[in-house]
């Protein structure tokens, strides 16, 4: 990883754009992902799927308090222990307390964005618990000491060659670029972790209120392992994950599978409603569910409920032309990257100015909205956040001054005409190529001309041509 996630935004972006290996890795993976999604959604009534998925999530957010209470009631009736955490720290404390009380030394974790968000691994390690990521991608980046760079494909930023080098170094694997061999090496290593761990940790894709059930979506089977083999199972879930009925979870599961990887369904859908029952040969002896707020209720307060609809499928990342250029690490120290990350990162933060550049890291092309299985209008949310941030005064002062001056001009056609004329006159003194295009502009417009030319102001404006032609004017009584 050549990106320092703690560096300033522009530095991170520069590092990402200069990283040829990163760009190769993204290039190889992302076009495949988008193609597979396109095939999978072409086979079904996509609009119906999106409408139904959206309706379920809207209902869930509208009825969040009641559904959470129902979920809690049923989880407890099923023999689970339920914990509530307002902050990341509270959630981490709950999990480390459970570990401490049971003398847990080793824990395995199935891939989970919520635990990534609250930095649970660090908290457990500080408490003396060895925590092993078991999703192959997460395992690779844990070995490399890096954070994930994608919601569903955490190691998308690495080429097979990079992973091979890492496994040779860390696991003593023989030199090979064959993913099957690398996978076998990881299986061997992780199998013993599963069998020896005293605690299994997972996130939660959907929680079913009517039955008190936690659903985990995986392909590798690590979710089923982590929730079945160790004696203690802890599920950490964001409070927005609850849905009313069993059918709703099954529908969203299919929507996520098609959107994320182009599968009809994922290989495993592990549906846990409690610890093992008397007489059952396996399954955890106790099951805990930690309901984590960590900024979600505040997102609702800030009137960004739309964000809580997200099902974390990663489709918006896979489709995003900006993500494809810079990958996930350029989004900084956050669990979430891409369009949804640009929205959710500043919203989850205590200080709304956190990650203030991210809402601007979009050309607003709208492809994220097009692929979102729950129809989140991400460009609109980016626009709203930009508005919030300019009100807080985060963009450079000259920008506000320029926009103010521009709007003062535009409101008054007379001033607008004078400004156009001035610009036309001024542009005669700027350097051009032999075709007459501007090649060098002063800052901040130099950012344009570094890689692009700009046409000069036309010798005669449209309105001049129009009046030459004797064309009709209308509504010109309010000149300023």
């Amino acid at each position, binding site marked *: 990883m050549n990106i320092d996630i703690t560096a300033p935004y522009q530095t991170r972006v520069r590092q990402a754009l200069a990283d040829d290996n990163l760009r190769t890795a993204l290039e190889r993976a992302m076009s495949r992902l988008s193609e597979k999604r396109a095939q999978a959604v072409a086979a079904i009534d996509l609009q119906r799927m999106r409408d139904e998925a959206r309706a379920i999530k809207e209902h869930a957010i509208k009825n969040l308090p009641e559904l959470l209470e129902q979920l809690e009631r049923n989880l407890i009736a099923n023999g689970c222990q339920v914990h509530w955490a307002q902050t990341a720290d509270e959630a981490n404390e709950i999990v480390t307390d459970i570990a401490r009380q049971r003398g847990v030394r080793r824990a395995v974790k199935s891939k989970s964005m919520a635990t990534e968000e609250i930095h649970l691994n660090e908290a457990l390690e500080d408490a003396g618990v060895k925590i092993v990521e078991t999703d192959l991608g997460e395992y690779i980046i844990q070995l490399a000491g890096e954070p994930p760079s994608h919601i569903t494909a955490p190691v998308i930023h690495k080429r097979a060659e990079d992973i091979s080098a890492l496994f040779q170094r860390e696991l003593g694997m023989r030199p090979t670029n064959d993913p099957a061999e690398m996978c076998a090496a990881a299986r061997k290593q992780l199998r013993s972790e599963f069998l020896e761990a005293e605690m299994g940790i997972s996130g939660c894709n959907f929680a079913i209120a009517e039955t008190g059930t936690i659903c985990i979506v995986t392909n590798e089977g690590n979710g089923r392992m982590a929730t079945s083999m160790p004696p203690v199972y802890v599920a950490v879930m964001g409070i927005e994950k609850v849905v009313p009925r069993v059918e709703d979870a099954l529908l969203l599961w299919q929507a996520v599978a098609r959107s994320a990887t182009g599968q009809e369904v994922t290989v495993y859908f592990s549906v846990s409603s409690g610890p093992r029952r008397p007489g059952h040969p396996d399954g955890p002896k106790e099951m805990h569910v930690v309901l984590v707020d960590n900024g979600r209720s505040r997102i609702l307060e800030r009137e960004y409920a739309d964000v809580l609809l997200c099902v974390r499928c990663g489709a918006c990342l896979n489709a995003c032309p900006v993500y494809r250029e810079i990958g996930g690490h350029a989004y900084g120290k956050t669990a979430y990257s891409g369009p949804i990350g640009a929205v959710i990162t500043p919203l989850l933060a205590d200080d709304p100015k956190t990650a203030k550049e991210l809402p*601007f890291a979009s050309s*607003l092309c709208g492809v994220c909205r097009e692929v979102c299985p729950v129809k989140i209008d991400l460009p609109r949310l980016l626009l709203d956040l930009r508005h919030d941030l300019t009100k807080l005064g985060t963009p450079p002062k000259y920008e506000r001054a320029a926009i103010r001056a521009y709007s003062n001009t535009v409101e008054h*056609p007379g001033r607008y005409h004078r400004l156009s004329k001035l610009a036309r006159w001024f542009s005669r003194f700027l350097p051009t190529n032999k075709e007459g295009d501007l090649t060098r502009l002063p800052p901040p417009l130099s950012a344009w001309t570094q*890689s692009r030319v700009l046409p000069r102001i*036309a010798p005669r404006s449209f309105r001049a041509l129009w*009046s030459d032609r004797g*064309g009709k004017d209308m509504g010109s009584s309010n000149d300023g």
Partner: protein
Amino acid sequence: MTRSNSDRKRPRVAMFVTCMVDTLYPGVGMAAVELLERHGADVVFPENQTCCGQPAFNAGYRDEARRMARHFLDLFGPLVDKGEVDAIVAPSGSCVAMVKHFYEVLFEGPGHNNEQRLVALVSEVTYELTQYLVDVLGVQDVDAEYGGTITYHPCCHLLRELEVDSQPRQLLASIKGAEIVDLPAEQECCGFGGLFAIKNAGISTAMGQRKVESILQSGADAVAVGDVSCMTQMNGLLKKMGHGGRVVHVAELLNGSTPRTPERQ
């Protein structure tokens, strides 16, 4: 004087030429006017028009954008209200999207009753050029000629905000002598994005370079687009990279006003 729409034989269109076309590409505006006139509309040009406010809105400056929007509404609203024009047409997907979709965001909530009324009135009759030609005027054949290959890049706002896509393609296909070729990864953004092109110049350039590669791969003599902003980005890169600008506004091709491969001979 108020005339009802039905008194007129030909629909009357108010041209919203957009600030970029007015100052940088007046030829595009003239081509749009000629097209509309040739296909059955009378065109008027409210001369006090300026900018729709999109640059400010997209950058997050809503108070400033609101002032610009109000100017637009004060100018065009009464024309529509009094029935002096039947439609407002602009040769730009993104400016039309601003009027049709985002003006209502600017005037949300109480205290904006008058603006809300005008927004509803105006957005109802505002069209992108090819949308108006096909959907309203029923044009199928533009009766233009072009001796070369043409490809089409669907600009993001036209495609995804307005969902206008078949109209320009249909009209381009009617150009005599032109061969329409595919643009690889055509739906990918060119990387313009307004102030994004400045604030995130590196990313914007990388995205645009990808588009340039697709354009070169397509082998097209002309790339037709519906927004001059995207055209500026693509030609700006093409020229800087020494390939010659070949991106043209769809209106110019449809109007037959584009010479074959203007800058590559």
